[in-house]
């Protein structure tokens, strides 16, 4: 059969019209296949620039080996010298003295600048998600202000401890810092997501314990973030955010429960502080609240992803009777989740979540290290306080 005969058998006058129709069909089929691929490629391309920058920024995070060397430092001057070789260098030059507080302030300024940089470089559709993550620093700042005002520190001293990043307007932060009483701080939070803090004033008056406010702030932060993550149509990025937030909420709740159980608090007095949401089933949380010791909380976690990390920290808890090893294990697990997201989702919010998570760990460790050396702790003691990425 010739091409002309083939065309005739299909009802075409000659081969060229048959070829034209075949080409048109091929084009339509091609478009149907190619357009979704192209949309995905455009999405990936959006993240190529920002994620590559974030990866370079991540490469500057102090590696574990360097941190181990810094732990062996015999003075803060040695720590500062080691930090001179890192990206903290320009911030350290502004230090007036070599005290751990001065190092912390340098860390805070650097952190704020890094986060602001990440916030400006990410694609538009990620800015909202990043804002949810950066609100953690609003809560950190409010906690610092509450502690500062409670301890009657000067506004300048309080201001120096803040990390100027987050969603709160700098002018609002300025007003909060100038407040002279906790009531004034809380009334100045009107119109912000943290105005609900006023509900805790009565309880604070009874207990005089700042944990009341701090736990309420965590509750506001994570419940709002969880509400956002669960109310949006789920895409890959939101799924990762949801996974990360859920782990955050579980870790915050578990740390609170472990502390409460160590102090022998009853279920009724803990329940109101727990953040709603997360991965742990409500029934499991309820059963954990009913147990009467740290060991029983650990046993109740069997079957969850938190069991193994917590179990590994139990021997140290038993020898020291300090809850810190368990808290470090939970924080390490959270850092692992952040790191895993950055690996599994390189063209989305993964690297940003990984960076924010690892940076938080780095700041915390350098802060612990500086305070430890200043207080004359031994290298072994400091090592026990250092947070590591969970396995």
């Amino acid at each position, binding site marked *: 059969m010739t*091409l002309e005969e083939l065309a005739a058998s299909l009802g075409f006058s000659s*081969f*060229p019209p048959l070829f034209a129709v075949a080409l048109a069909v091929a084009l339509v089929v091609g478009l149907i296949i190619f357009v979704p691929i192209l949309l995905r490629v455009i999405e990936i391309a959006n993240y*190529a*620039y920002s*994620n*590559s920058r974030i990866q370079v920024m991540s490469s500057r995070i102090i590696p574990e080996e360097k941190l181990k060397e810094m732990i062996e430092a015999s003075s803060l001057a040695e720590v500062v010298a080691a930090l001179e070789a890192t990206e903290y260098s320009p911030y350290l030059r502004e230090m007036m003295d070599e005290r751990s507080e001065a190092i912390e302030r340098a860390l805070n300024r650097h952190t704020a600048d890094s986060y602001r940089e990440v916030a400006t470089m990410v694609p538009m559709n990620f800015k909202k998600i990043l804002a949810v993550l950066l609100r953690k620093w609003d809560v950190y700042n409010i906690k610092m202000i509450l502690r500062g005002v409670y301890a009657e520190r000067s506004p300048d001293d309080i201001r120096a401890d803040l990390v100027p990043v987050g969603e709160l307007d700098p002018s609002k932060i300025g007003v909060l810092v100038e407040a002279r009483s906790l009531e004034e701080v809380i009334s100045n939070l009107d119109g912000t997501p943290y105005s609900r803090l006023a509900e805790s004033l009565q309880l604070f008056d009874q207990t005089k314990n700042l944990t009341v406010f701090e736990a309420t702030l965590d509750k506001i932060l994570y419940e709002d973030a969880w509400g956002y993550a669960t109310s949006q149509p789920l895409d890959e990025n939101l799924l990762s955010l949801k996974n990360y937030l859920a782990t955050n909420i579980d870790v915050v709740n578990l740390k609170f429960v472990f502390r409460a159980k160590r102090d022998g608090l009853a279920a009724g007095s803990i329940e109101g502080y727990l953040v709603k949401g997360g991965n742990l089933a409500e029934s499991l949380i309820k059963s954990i609240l009913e147990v009467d010791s740290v060991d029983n909380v650990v046993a109740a976690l069997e079957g969850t992803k938190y069991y193994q990390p917590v179990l590994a920290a139990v021997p140290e808890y038993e020898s020291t009777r300090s809850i810190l090893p368990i808290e470090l294990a939970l924080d390490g697990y959270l850092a692992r989740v952040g790191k895993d997201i950055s690996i599994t989702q390189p*063209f989305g919010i993964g690297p940003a979540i990984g960076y924010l998570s690892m940076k938080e760990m780095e700041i915390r460790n350098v802060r612990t290290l500086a305070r430890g050396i200043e207080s004359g702790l031994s290298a072994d003691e400091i090592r026990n306080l250092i947070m590591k990425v969970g396995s």
Partner: protein
Amino acid sequence: MLDVSTGVALAAVGAGISMGAAAIGSGIGVGIAGAAGAGAIAEDPNKFGTALVFQALPQTQGIYGFLGAVLIMIGTGILGGFAGFEAAANTMAGLVGTTPENAALIMGLAAVGGGLSVGLAGLSAIGQGITAAGSIGAVSKEPGAFGKCMVLTVMSETFAVFGLLITILILVGLKLLGA
């Protein structure tokens, strides 16, 4: 009644698809890798070398497309215009024992097939660009991963090479090249 102009047109379409589709693939791939490279350089200008190497990889599909188009044009004789194509069609007609019009049509369709092969295979540059972008980020974070990331990025190249190979085999098999 067919004349050689249909064959010439088809041969031109084949050469066009070869270069055009491969250029789309390379353009997108190089663009994605370039954006990642720019991000790395913005943070650390010393990453330019790494970025350049990875950005260059998705360009090869464009080169294969260009090579495929040139081979199609040489094989079908359209570099010599209508006269060149007619001469090639007459030679083919003699070789396969058909009319010059039919030979022209076969040559044109072979060119379209060859062009589609190398052109569509050239779209593998998009995937390669994505891997290259990921690799730029990975190598920026961990310079020791350069070799491994290079191997991963080069993988997509295989399909572009297969595409070009099939184009050459079509042209050689139909005695448009090397006869």
